[in-house]
């Protein structure tokens, strides 16, 4: 099957756009792993929740994730208050109640208002992000924080369990039907033989902006440096009063926001089902693994590569698309395990 130029350009465009989203997810996975040693399998559910929450808001129904947010908020408040029961101060209790109990109520109010007054698309996107993002830190409080000292393997098993649980909840809230969301930029740019959809441009621009923002956060702000410090030396960080729980909150907030944003971006291009997030996240995970779960530039570059492989594979051999993509990981893992004897042990330090 010959590929003419216009098809080639379409495939490359597809590959780059999907690769950008995998890249975002890979970055989120690396952030969470380096800071908390958790391999965040459920990031795929944040992707699906982000997309389906936006889709629900668009059709004017209150998304089930609002209720989930409330339940997780209550559970997180209970865990946090219990963890700090012996040295609670008025300020810390107020902060915990505000962020775990009040926030879901405010967000639910926003979601209701958004449906009631037919808010513009951008507002819906922001509300969808506000619904999904706090789930990250809540899940950290409820699931991961009580077992922060467990081994990487145990944390991984817990991640898989959490992924299955959240996927089940996704089915309950959104049903088995897929949804698509409206395009964020309904135009097409024509350059010679190349048609670029507005959505592609939005995806690439948002991805680049987010990468720059993350870079500035980690390099220039004290909180970003604190996260890096926790990643390189947990005890050293604690000795300068950087709390692993605080860093866990920040890392999980970033991951849930990035995941939800990835879902929102991709759902204008593909139909998202309650279980689609996992496959998308898995490709981000492959990219992150190629970067050894620690290297940001390697992870981002591999994500683009995966996007391209997937795009060309779907054209030439669509039945084997996923197989080809996931086969990339085999030589990489062989090469890695050959160079560094035990990937999982690296995080144990």
């Amino acid at each position: 099957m010959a590929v003419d130029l216009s098809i080639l350009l379409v495939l490359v465009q597809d590959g780059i756009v999907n690769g950008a989203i995998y890249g975002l997810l890979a970055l989120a996975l690396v952030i969470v792993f380096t800071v908390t040693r958790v391999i965040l399998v459920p990031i795929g559910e944040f992707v699906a929740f982000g997309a389906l929450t936006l889709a629900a808001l668009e059709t004017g129904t209150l998304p089930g994730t609002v209720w989930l947010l409330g339940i997780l908020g209550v559970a997180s408040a209970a865990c946090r208050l219990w963890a700090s029961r012996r040295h609670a101060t008025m300020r810390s209790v107020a902060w915990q109640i505000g962020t775990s109990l009040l926030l879901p109520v405010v967000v639910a109010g926003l979601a209701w208002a958004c449906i009631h007054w037919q808010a513009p698309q951008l507002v819906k996107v922001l509300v969808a992000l506000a619904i999904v993002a706090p789930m990250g830190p809540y899940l950290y409080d409820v699931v991961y924080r009580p077992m922060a000292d467990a081994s990487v393997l145990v944390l991984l098993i817990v991640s898989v369990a959490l992924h299955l649980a959240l996927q089940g909840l996704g089915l309950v809230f959104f049903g088995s039907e897929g949804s698509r969301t409206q395009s964020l930029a309904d135009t097409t740019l024509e350059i010679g033989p190349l048609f670029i959809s507005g959505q592609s441009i939005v995806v690439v621009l948002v991805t680049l902006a987010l990468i720059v923002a993350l870079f500035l956060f980690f390099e220039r702000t004290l909180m970003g440096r604190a996260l890096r410090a926790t990643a390189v030396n947990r005890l050293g960080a604690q000795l300068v009063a950087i709390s692993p729980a605080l860093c866990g909150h920040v890392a999980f907030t970033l991951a849930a926001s990035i995941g939800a944003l990835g879902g929102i971006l991709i759902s204008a291009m593909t139909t998202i089902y309650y279980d689609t997030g996992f496959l998308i996240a898995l490709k981000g995970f492959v990219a992150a693994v190629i970067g050894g779960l620690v290297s940001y530039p390697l992870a981002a570059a591999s994500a683009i590569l995966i996007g391209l492989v997937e795009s060309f594979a779907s054209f030439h051999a669509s039945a084997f698309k996923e197989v080809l993509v996931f086969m990339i990981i085999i030589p990489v893992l062989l090469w890695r395990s050959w160079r560094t004897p035990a990937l999982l042990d690296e995080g144990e330090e």
Partner: protein
Amino acid sequence: MTQPILDVQALHVAYDAIIAVSDVSMSVPKGSIVTILGPNGAGKSSLLNAIMGVVPAGGAIHFAGRALGGESVEARVNDGLSLVPEKRELFYSMSVEDNLRLGRFRLRHQGSAEPMLNEMWALFPRLKERRRQLAGTLSGGERQMLAMARALMGEPRLLMLDEPSLGLAPLIVREILQTASNLRDNGVSILLVEQNARAALRIADYGYVLESGRVMLEGEPDALQADQRIVESYLGVRSAVSV
């Protein structure tokens, strides 16, 4: 004498079967230097780590009049305790300056770090020359300085130093201990673990000698220096290597 800033009663530290510290009671008066001497494996580091909350311990610890229970390490640092651990635990892939800025994390809401940073540059000019260098590329002595400076950035009320002179040239040892002595004059209390007993006793106000996890001897520096056992084990003409 006023209430001590740190008071430890019947402290007990065990790692599985190994008892590292047993029934140790000691205190640090405000604004003084207390030193802990003892051979390798005596339990000195374990004692400091237990006070800091790095390892779990039995017994009672009071810091600034408050009982420390299950507080996390970072909560204790927030209270004004600080430890420069034996292994330093620096952020090796970050710059010297970033290490120092992070040292002030507990005071992040209380104004700029610049004045304190400038104080550290004045105290350790060598670090200033290397402010952009990665901490991992520093020499051993420079790392000690960075570890101490990082702890000082947080303006602790009690500074615990675990063998600050480890592997350092005599001239730098004197410099570091002189810094500790100056800090005391500025009101910082110091708990100093040292192998270099002679140098430690010179600046200390009080000393404890730990052996096999127990306090064998305690007293003023003069009394300790006069004690025959100390002279033999730590100060004498014989090799200082014991146990």
